[in-house]
């Protein structure tokens, strides 16, 4: 009864639907916003200017032929348009959040299915490992890891680029050249995916324990279906909505971790931006003498709204699809 009405329950949840549209809007805005800004204002939208710390709404003096730049959200310490930077930061933060959550989805699901399906001693051991990992400060290791391998990863990519250039693969070299400033992002995606899979593994394992005792799974086993076939044909389809739910709740966790690292100066680096690194700049710019409040407030609003939307949507999905969550 409950399973059938899951999507209906979700549709009746006004807050979750609003949250979904807010997220769609945020993604669309971050994708189409920067090119539109560039097409209106030309290159001044993304570059440096002499207007440092201009308050929101400042209009720059028109430069020959081009339209005068209007700084909707003000500018930062080197006169860059904050609106443009917040949107570019949204791209990075959302990309890391979604891709990192996808990594954790794969890891957590595989781990949970194996643990729940094997059962017995293996299950007990695997879950004990999850418990231990859950109660140590994983981000500390991640910080050391990134500090240790961030540069190596970058150098490795650079080496690949040179090798490609040496062989005359111009397209490949250009692509790698373009990717170079973003090497940190790739590292962050993998690393954060590697630490945020624990909740997913636990939930999936719990549900597999329930499912594998069900009659249809027993029937499949009796009919000679291989374990792999049972997982693929019977378990995964029944896990899909649960996985989707916890995926939605993992994304904000990864976004949070990424901004945590960027805020401490270990994540995304200038000139690339993420919400975390923008917040760091904002926090530094607010001092006793001057309050450049916009540098803190605008990234904070964007990030908070996104996080809220993800959590609202995730809670709505959980209420609709998680049999264990109580209403």
């Amino acid at each position, binding site marked *: 009864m409950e399973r059938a009405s899951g999507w209906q329950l979700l549709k009746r949840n006004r807050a979750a639907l609003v949250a979904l549209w807010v997220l769609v809007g945020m993604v669309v805005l971050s994708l189409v916003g920067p090119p539109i800004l560039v097409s209106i204002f030309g290159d001044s939208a993304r570059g440096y200017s002499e207007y440092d710390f201009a308050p929101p709404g400042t209009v720059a003096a028109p430069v020959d032929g081009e339209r005068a730049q209007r700084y909707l959200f003000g500018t930062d310490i080197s006169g860059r348009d904050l609106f443009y930077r917040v949107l570019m930061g949204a791209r990075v933060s959302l990309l890391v959040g979604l891709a990192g959550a996808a990594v954790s989805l794969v890891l957590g699901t595989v781990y949970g299915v194996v643990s729940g399906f094997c059962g017995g001693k293996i299950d007990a051991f695997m879950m004990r490992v999850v*418990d231990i990992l859950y*109660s140590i400060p994983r981000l500390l290791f991640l910080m*050391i890891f990134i500090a240790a391998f961030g540069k190596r990863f970058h150098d490795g990519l650079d080496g690949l680029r040179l090798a490609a250039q040496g062989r005359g693969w111009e397209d490949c070299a250009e692509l790698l050249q373009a990717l170079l400033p973003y090497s940190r992002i790739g590292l962050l995606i993998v690393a954060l995916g590697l630490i945020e899979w624990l909740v997913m593994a636990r939930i999936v394992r719990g549900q597999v324990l329930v499912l594998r005792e069900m009659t249809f799974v027993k029937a499949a086993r009796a009919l000679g279906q291989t374990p792999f076939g049972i997982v693929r044909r019977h378990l995964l389809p029944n896990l899909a909505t649960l996985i989707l739910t916890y995926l939605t709740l993992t994304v904000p966790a990864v976004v949070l971790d990424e901004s945590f690292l960027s805020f401490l100066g270990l994540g995304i680096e200038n000139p690339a931006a993420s919400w975390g690194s923008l917040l760091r700049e904002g926090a530094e710019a607010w001092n006793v003498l001057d309050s450049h409040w916009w540098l803190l407030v605008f990234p904070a609003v964007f990030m908070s709204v996104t996080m809220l939307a993800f959590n609202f949507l995730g809670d709505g999905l959980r209420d609709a699809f998680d049999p264990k969550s109580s209403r």
Partner: protein
Amino acid sequence: MTRFVFNRLCSTIIVVFCVITVTFFLSRTQKGGAFESGKERPAHITEALEKKYGLDGTAFEQYARYLGNLARGDLGVSFRYRNRRVGEVIAQQLPVSLILGSVAFVIATCGGIVLGMIAAVGRNRWPDYLAMLFALLAISVPTFITGPLLIGYLSLRLGWFPPGGWLSPMSLVLPAICLAAPYVAYVARLMRNSMIEVLGADYVRTARAKGLTEGAIAARHALKAAILPVVAFLGPLAANLVTGSIVVESVFGLPGAGRIFVNGIQNSDTFLLCGIVVVYCLLIVFFNLVVDLLYGWLDPRIRIGNAHG
């Protein structure tokens, strides 16, 4: 019981050993080396430096030596804080982090339990909606947003609190609130859900039939049963507070262990990093042991020894 503690101590030693190994090799692999200053240095001086800081020999020799020293309680020498032992540096900085963490811990558990109970007793009415809205906000807005905003408004604009540093008990207020806020929310949610479940139990119906008020039932009869998921969360909570205090300490400029950890990463201060991680992990693992014992005491149905999940 003794067997349980013994088993747990064994697994503790394994965990700490893994933690040390991972931290040691991760922080050692950093490029640049600890003594590179851009200037050429005569070979014999480099050699002497390496010897002094325990960096001579292969990686495994260094690792073995480090483990040996660690077993004797010696955490090694810091690269950055020249001529100071890591043990000294940590002993000086850790109390600040511990005070901050304990205050936040108390706020998070007590505040969360009270808030969750209020929400559960008034469920699907305004106290519930209000409490859960607050919880969602507190979970969604991270510390590094609330921290700078609170400093900017309450400290710099209104001057109610010192904007940072470690001068008076007043300078603890904002950091502790910032650090605790998300976890107040987590605990409140856990508490609300388990409370609602318990409030539907038969013995609660009996209590209600006796004519007790909802509040009295919640506080006197349901609390002990409903608090179990919160107790299970205390271990991860401690780990999260450790991570969170790193940001809070750097936002508020507190002289705690979290801040020297960040500095240590930037300076590849291997032994300092290892030392901090080891001390933190020991604290957390010990704390988890206490929580497990507490859990068994609260719920005798759980046979200590094979409890997990």
